[in-house]
Structure formats: structure tokens, C-alpha cells
């Protein structure tokens, strides 16, 4: 039977099932294969808050959204084309994301009475059986049954057999999107190298799914998403937290410093710790402290010792670090603080994304305690941004807060990675007795024209000195209660941070003209949605531009100049309005807030609609 193949520019697939159904892995494997096909990619996993919420319930649904395309894309996308629903709850939780005419791949075994009850379908009425799905194309597969049948002779127990279920769906999808199984087979072979029966079972089920598509009569259309016109080069797929971790290792090596990472586990920051702990052969020291305060203090101690101390957490953990960060501000030593933001306040929505810790980053300490704040805007950008954070921290002897978020941290995209040698060296401002002594005395708080003091670390002869959290004399660093000295030091600490604006790139316009009707200016993970929305509007002939702020403190020197050439400035944020506060406080301009506080990223459509509303 001939099957028709249809070309598509981009497709969004949402894999959804119980936490135990392996949807994250399924999604990742599809992602990897798509990457090999040269697609541009953006992904977004969405975990339940519980480890394993009750089987079959909406709360227990785990999702993985994959957007792959033959064009440039910047977000995991708005409208889902294919929804894989391993059970009734998965359908219920995600149907609203499916576009009209979209496809539902339903595992019928997940729609039995029990599952329908757990998913709270009225009267245990299956949506597969009534008319509620009329607007969609429904493909029913009895995945469980077919998996079992495929493995009837495998000798494996039911539990192990059932664990292969996700491979069936994956195989079927590979067929649907015209992809080979090769890459996934390789993966399975490596992963289960020591368990040949499991390996074989997985491959068998994978193939069964594929063959099912190939042979079954009902499935006549296949889709093809051609490779994107990405710049030529070598690519890998990268997740945000992973990029942050390897960026740190690279930065430390580029500074020729040891990397010390003090952290206490917390979602969604922990994966950075996990990733770093895997790279001990790079000399990385990971220290799982007893709490966040110990973590940041240990990192300060490591920095005092001449390593680059890094600490990471998420909102509530960062709140705990405030006092110690103030100490680092006083000590004027390098310290990188990573906040992978999540939904707040308090414990909030720990597995959801949010950008609501910006004000905490700027102000969450006692006294006048300025530091540098910087934010990556996509998974691969984490790599470059964390290196930049580390560079500023080391070269300017100042704590730097790096604001990632759950969306970036767990999302992934293809990355045309750089060669190590192309990454700039980082130059610590080390003291040494030769140059640093003035008539035999060492003045640890003497500064250069950037207002940066020297870094004298234990072991350096004749440079012994004492530092601390009390106000310090502007030159000797000794404790000083002198009123004028205090004012001077408060101003100097501020000015030192402000002057960093001389060492960062000017704010550029991301796309569009440098003047027009509306400038969309965001920070962090709103980048992709804004990018897509503005691109579409420009294509439609509107005078809309996009800029995106990476340096949140200090701002680029020309920020106001960039903004003032637009009639309106729109600031989309996944919070109740924080960047806009900083901008309004500083510049003579009233920007327009656009806020979403749902624990979810913006869709490009939301931004586009807002822009259209403002344009009309």
C-alpha cells in the first residue's frame, strides 16, 4: 500500500503520560533523532510536583513538548500538532493545547474505567467514545497490549515488559515522521549493554511500533520535516542546566582557577549539581552542603582561598543566602550565584517556571549591597552567559547573580557549539608581593581605575591580611567606623558595579528597525516567544522591534537610547512586573507591562496578540 508523505515546516509533539510512563525519555529520544535530521529544535518538559503522584490522576501527568522545524524556531511552540496521551489523565490535562485538527495518539489501555475515574471524567465516560474529540484526529493504539504481545516470548516479567511501552509509541512516531530508528537503537544498545534481554526487548517494541505504522492500513499519511537552514557547522542538543554546568567548567579553566561548587539540592537547580558531579575528572569540586547558607558560605570560603566559588539554588534557597551574599559584596571577591527561578512566593510552584526573583536579586540583602545581575535567554545561551557571569565576577571582584529559570533550565535546543580555544581567557586580578607592596605594606582595598581591588589569596607571601563584613577602610581594608569613609565605600561599591557597564556590550536591537511603533524588550526566557511574535509582525509589515536585556545590573549604557526611539515599549515578563519597575525607576519613560503568572512560559501568540492590540 502506498503511503503519502506530506511536508511540514514545523511540528509540535506533546508526549504525555503518567510519571512512570517514560515520556521524558521518549521525548528526548525523538528530539535527538530530529536533531540528527538537521531540524531546529526547542523542548519543554513539564513535570508533576510529586515524585510519583497517584497513578492515573491529572496531578501525576508528566509532559514533554518538542518543537522541531525546518525553519528557525525559538520556543517550544504554541499549538500542539500531535498529542500522545498514554492515559485519560494525560488527555484531560493537555487537550487544551492541541490545535483544532491536531492528532491524538491515545493508548486505549489507559482509557479503561479505572483510568477514566482517576482522571475524573464524568460518569467514567471515555472521550474516545463520545463526540468530544470530533475536532481532532484520533489514533487509537492499544499500546499495552501490543507491547505485551511483542514480548510474549521474551522471558521478561510483566513489570519489565510494561516498561517498554513507550518504545512502541516512539517507534510509531518515527514512522509517522519518516525517521530511521538507528540513533535510538544505538542509544538503547549502549544504555542496556549489560542487560541484553532488556536491550532486545526495547528494540523489538520500538520496531513493532514502527512496523505497525508501516503495515497498518489506516495510516496513510506520513509527514516530513526537512532540515532547517541552520548555519553550517557541528551541532549538539543542549539543555539549559547542562549548558550552565559545562559553561562553569569552561570558565574556571579559562581563568585557570579551580571550580568549587557549593550547593544544596532544590528543584529546578539540582541538575547543575548532578551534571557537575559527573565531571570530577575536570577537577571540579562539588560540595553538597547541609543547607543553602552553608553552600554559599563554603563557596565564599573557596573564593577566599583562590578558587572560583559558585553557589546555586532556586528562589527560597536564594532568599536564605541573602545575608552571606552581602558579605561577599563587602569582601569584594568573586562569587557566582545561580538562581534557577521557579514559581513563587514561598514554596510556590516548585516545578513550574517564573521570572519573579529579579527584585530579590537586586535588593534581597540588607544595606546598600549592589551586585551584578545577568540572565541567559535560552538553553544554549546559558553556556555563554554563565561564562560571562564568571568573567565579570573574577575580573571585577564582585558577586554576580545569574538568573536562569525552570523553562530554560529544562528546555533544550540544538547548539552549534564553539571550540574551546575560541573562548576568551579570563584574567584574575591577582596580587603578588612584587607589584602589590607599597613601602612594604599591603593595601588589600587599594583599587585600579575600574575600582577593582587585588585578589590576594592565602599562600601569597607577605600579603597576609584580614577581611570581614564590617565596614572597611578604603585602602587598608582595616575595620573603619569613620563616617566619611563609610559613605565613600558605599559609593565606591556602587560605582564599581556601575562601571562594569564599560565592560559589557551595548544594548543591541535583536530584530527590527532601531525606531518604530513598539519595542518589545524582555529578559531571560521570554526571548523565544518575543522573537517569534516580532518576526511574524515584521513580516506582516509592522514597525515592531525586539531587544532583549542580558545585563540587568548594571544596564547597558545605551539602554535608554535604544528604548526612547519607540512610541511604546512593551515589557513581557513571567511575573507581576519587575524589570519594568527597574526601568521606570531609572528612566524617563513609562513602559507597558505584559505579565503572565501561570507557571508557564509565554506563547508567541500571546505576545503577538498583545502587540496587535497595542498597534491598533
Amino acid at each position, binding site marked *: 500500500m502506498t503511503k503519502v508523505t506530506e511536508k511540514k515546516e514545523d511540528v509540535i509533539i506533546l508526549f504525555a503520560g503518567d510519571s512512570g510512563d517514560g515520556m521524558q525519555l521518549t521525548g528526548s529520544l525523538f528530539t535527538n533523532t530530529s536533531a540528527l535530521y538537521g531540524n531546529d529544535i526547542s523542548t519543554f518538559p513539564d513535570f508533576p510536583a510529586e515524585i510519583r503522584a497517584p497513578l492515573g490522576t491529572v496531578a501525576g501527568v508528566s509532559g514533554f513538548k518538542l518543537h522541531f522545524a525546518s525553519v528557525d524556531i525559538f520556543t517550544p511552540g504554541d499549538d500542539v500538532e500531535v498529542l500522545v496521551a498514554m492515559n485519560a489523565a494525560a488527555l484531560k490535562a493537555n487537550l487544551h493545547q492541541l490545535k483544532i485538527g491536531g492528532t491524538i495518539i491515545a493508548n486505549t489501555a489507559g482509557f479503561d474505567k479505572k483510568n477514566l475515574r482517576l482522571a475524573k471524567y464524568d460518569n467514567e465516560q471515555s472521550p474516545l467514545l463520545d463526540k468530544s474529540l470530533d475536532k481532532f484526529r484520533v489514533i487509537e493504539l492499544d499500546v499495552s497490549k501490543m507491547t505485551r504481545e511483542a514480548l510474549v516470548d521474551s522471558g521478561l516479567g510483566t513489570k519489565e515488559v510494561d516498561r517498554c511501552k513507550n518504545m512502541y509509541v516512539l517507534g510509531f512516531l518515527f514512522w509517522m515522521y519518516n525517521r530511521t530508528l538507528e540513533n535510538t537503537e544505538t542509544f538503547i544498545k549502549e544504555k542496556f549493554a549489560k542487560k541484553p534481554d532488556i536491550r532486545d526487548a526495547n528494540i523489538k517494541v520500538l520496531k513493532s511500533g514502527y512496523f505497525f505504522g508501516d503495515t497498518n492500513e489506516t495510516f496513510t499519511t506520513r509527514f516530513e520535516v526537512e532540515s532547517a537552514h541552520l548555519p553550517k557547522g557541528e*551541532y549538539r542538543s543542549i539543555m539549559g542546566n547542562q549548558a550552565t554546568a559545562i559553561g562553569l567548567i569552561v570558565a574556571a579553566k579559562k581563568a585557570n582557577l579551580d571550580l568549587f561548587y557549593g550547593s544544596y539540592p532544590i528543584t529546578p537547580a539540582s541538575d547543575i549539581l548532578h551534571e557537575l558531579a559527573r565531571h570530577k575528572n575536570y577537577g571540579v569540586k562539588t560540595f553538597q552542603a547541609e543547607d543553602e*547558607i552553608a553552600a554559599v558560605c563554603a563557596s565564599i570560603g573557596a573564593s577566599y582561598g583562590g578558587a572560583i566559588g559558585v553557589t546555586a539554588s532556586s528562589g527560597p534557597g536564594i532568599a536564605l543566602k541573602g545575608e552571606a551574599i552581602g558579605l561577599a559584596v563587602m569582601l569584594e571577591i568573586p562569587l557566582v550565584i545561580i538562581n534557577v527561578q521557579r514559581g513563587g512566593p514561598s514554596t510556590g510552584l516548585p516545578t513550574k517556571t517564573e521570572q519573579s526573583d529579579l527584585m530579590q536579586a537586586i535588593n534581597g540583602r540588607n544595606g546598600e549591597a549592589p551586585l551584578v545581575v545577568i540572565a541567559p535567554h535560552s538553553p544554549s545561551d546559558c553556556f555563554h552567559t554563565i561564562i560571562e557571569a564568571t568573567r565579570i565576577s573574577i575580573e571585577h571582584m564582585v558577586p554576580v547573580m545569574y538568573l536562569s529559570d525552570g523553562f530554560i533550565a529544562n528546555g533544550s535546543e540544538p547548539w552549534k557549539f564553539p571550540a574551546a580555544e575560541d573562548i576568551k581567557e579570563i584574567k584574575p586580578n591577582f596580587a603578588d608581593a612584587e607589584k602589590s607592596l607599597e613601602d612594604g605594606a599591603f593595601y588589600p582595598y587599594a583599587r585600579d581605575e575600574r575600582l577593582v581591588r587585588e585578589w590576594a589569596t592565602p599562600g601569597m607571601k607577605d600579603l597576609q591580611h584580614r577581611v570581614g563584613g564590617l565596614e572597611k577602610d578604603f585602602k587598608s581594608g582595616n575595620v573603619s567606623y569613620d563616617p566619611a569613609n563609610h559613605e565613600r565605600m558605599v559609593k565606591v561599591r556602587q560605582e564599581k558595579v556601575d562601571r562594569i557597564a564599560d565592560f559589557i556590550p551595548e544594548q543591541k536591537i535583536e530584530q527590527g528597525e532601531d525606531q518604530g511603533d513598539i519595542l518589545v524588550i524582555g529578559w531571560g526566557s521570554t526571548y523565544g516567544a518575543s522573537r517569534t511574535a516580532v518576526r511574524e509582525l515584521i513580516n506582516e509589515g509592522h514597525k515592531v522591534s525586539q531587544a532583549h536585556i542580558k545585563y540587568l545590573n548594571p544596564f547597558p549604557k545605551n539602554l535608554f537610547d535604544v528604548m526612547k526611539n519607540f512610541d511604546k515599549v512593551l515589557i513581557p515578563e513571567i511575573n507581576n512586573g519587575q524589570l519594568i519597575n527597574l526601568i521606570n525607576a531609572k528612566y524617563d519613560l513609562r513602559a507597558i507591562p505584559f505579565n503572565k503568572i501561570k507557571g508557564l512560559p509565554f506563547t508567541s501568540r500571546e505576545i503577538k496578540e498583545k502587540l496587535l492590540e497595542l498597534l491598533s
Partner: protein
Amino acid sequence: MTKTNDIQVNLTAKDLATDQDVRWCPGCGDYSILKQLQSTLAEANISKEDTVFVSGIGCSSRFPYYMDTYGIHSIHGRATALASGLKASRPDLSVWIITGDGDSLSIGGNHLIHLLRRNFDVNILMFNNEIYGLTKGQYSPTSPKGQTTKSSPMGSLDHPFNPAALVLGASATFVARSMDRDPKHMREILKAADSHKGTSFIEIYQNCNVFNDGAFEVFTDKGTKADNVILLEEGQPLIFGADSDKGIRFEGMKPVIVSLSDVSKDDLWIHDSKDETKAYFLSKMFDEPGSEGAMPRPFGVFYQEDRFRYEEAMNEQIDRAISLKGKGDLDKLIRGSSTWKV
């Protein structure tokens, strides 16, 4: 463990002093501790640049300013945490933590017990004056119940910690007690702590003559000391009293005071700092002095044990990783395990 000077200079205590005025109250017990530590380290001929003093906040925590080594006067309760990171990243340094009873046992209690279990090779000097000195006289976690202070005008309601028992419970590998008023004893203990590999915890009874004067008088005053103090000496029986006429022995599993006229020295409890059980009993000799049947208070090294140090294990793991996977190559790291070309 102290790092000593390679080139043989002979340090004096004065070489270890800084140009900063020492700002404790006249008569404060802290002076004596400073002096003994300076002498001890001078005698050990330390390398000044390889030594770091780390403190929290409190009167005692000003200590680093007076030592011509590297130093951090950090924030309240966190010296232990800071020192952990410092030692982990720089195992070559000799690290000394100076802390008060409030700094280490109140706000800093958690970092203290975690440092102890991890057994970083650092020294903790806990200046116990049973009061918050710097904030002008509130009760501390070691103040006896009922103590009237600024924050407890009718007497404190807190059952105090027994610091030795607490740190033993937290798996400390070196536990000792000394006092400001016995310089010789203090120097000995400081030396022992310095040579211990692992975390050394020394509780030093320190008189705060402004807010808690005389808290330890029974242990330091000539008239009462002999009957209330027992000085522990390795391998020696536990003997005390003005005429060294009293001893302690175990009856069943209970230490009791006996008169040396009745009992031979050989039958007494012989001090063995390697014996965890005996250390337990020493920590429990914590009666209120003068109370019915009170045991004398022990001073000296209660316990020492050789257990792996965190920083060493950490480095071993790194070495092992390198020998397994090879020294990390940045390009490999950046590429990850699977790439494709466009």
C-alpha cells in the same frame, strides 16, 4: 595541621601580632587565649601565609584581626561553613576557626555538627563564656538554666547544651576542654589539636568579666580549682584534689569518686583518649559544681580518633576520576556525547 615555614625563621609570638589595637575589654579572658595561641604557633614556627583564621561574629570572633596570618571575620555562625569551603578547595592551608558559644552553638549549631561529621582537618576554638558578649549580655545556649541576663530578667528557661556531649554525638574526632586562666594547659591542648588530623574541637572556658564575671571561677580560682577540676593526662589515672588524694574509678558502669587512701591508683580510671566510651563518660561529668555528689569537671583531651578527612576523600575521588576517564578535555566536554553536522 599547621603548615610550617620551609625556610627556618624563628618566629616569636610578637611576629604573629598585627598592627591593630586589640579591642577587648580590659580583663577579658580572650587576651590570654590570643597570647597562648600566638606563642604556640610561633613555637610551631608556622608559615604565616599558609595559615588562615576564620571567625563568625562575637567578641571572640574579632580574633583574626590580631593574627598576622590570612583571616576572615565573616558573619554570625558561619565560620565553620566558610572554613569548610576553604579547606575543601585548599587542603594545603592550616585553618583555624575562632568562635563563641553563641556563634557556634546557637546560630551556627548546624554547620558545626556537619563540619564535625565531615571531619575536615581544621581546628575549632570555641570560646565559651556562657553569654553573648558582643551584644551586651544575653544568655547563650551554654548559660545555666535560671541565669538572669538582659534577655532573661527572671532567669533563663533553656536547658543548656553540654558541648562535649553534643559534639561527640555529632561524631567529632577530637574533643578537648581548656581554660583561659591556665596558659600552660591551653598551650598543650592547642598543640595537640594542631597535630590532630581531622577536626579538632576545643572548648575553652573564657571569662567575660563584663557580662558574666566569674562563671568559671570554681575551676580557675586557686581555692576551689583542685576539688573541681580533673586534668586528663594520657595513660594516667584520674586523680584530683588539693592533695591529689582523690581519684575516679568505675563501679559497674558508673564512675565514682574514691579516696586514694582506700583505693590503689592502679584501680582508677586510666585516661585513654582513644576510648570512645570513656570519652562519653567524661562528657557526662558535667554536674553543677558544688552540687550533691558532683564530679569534678575534666579538662584535657577527651577523645581523639583517626577518621578520613573530607578534603582528602574529595581529592582522591578527583584523582580516581582522572585515572578512570582521563584529565578533562574542554572540547570533549562542550561536544557532549552526540553531535551532528549541518
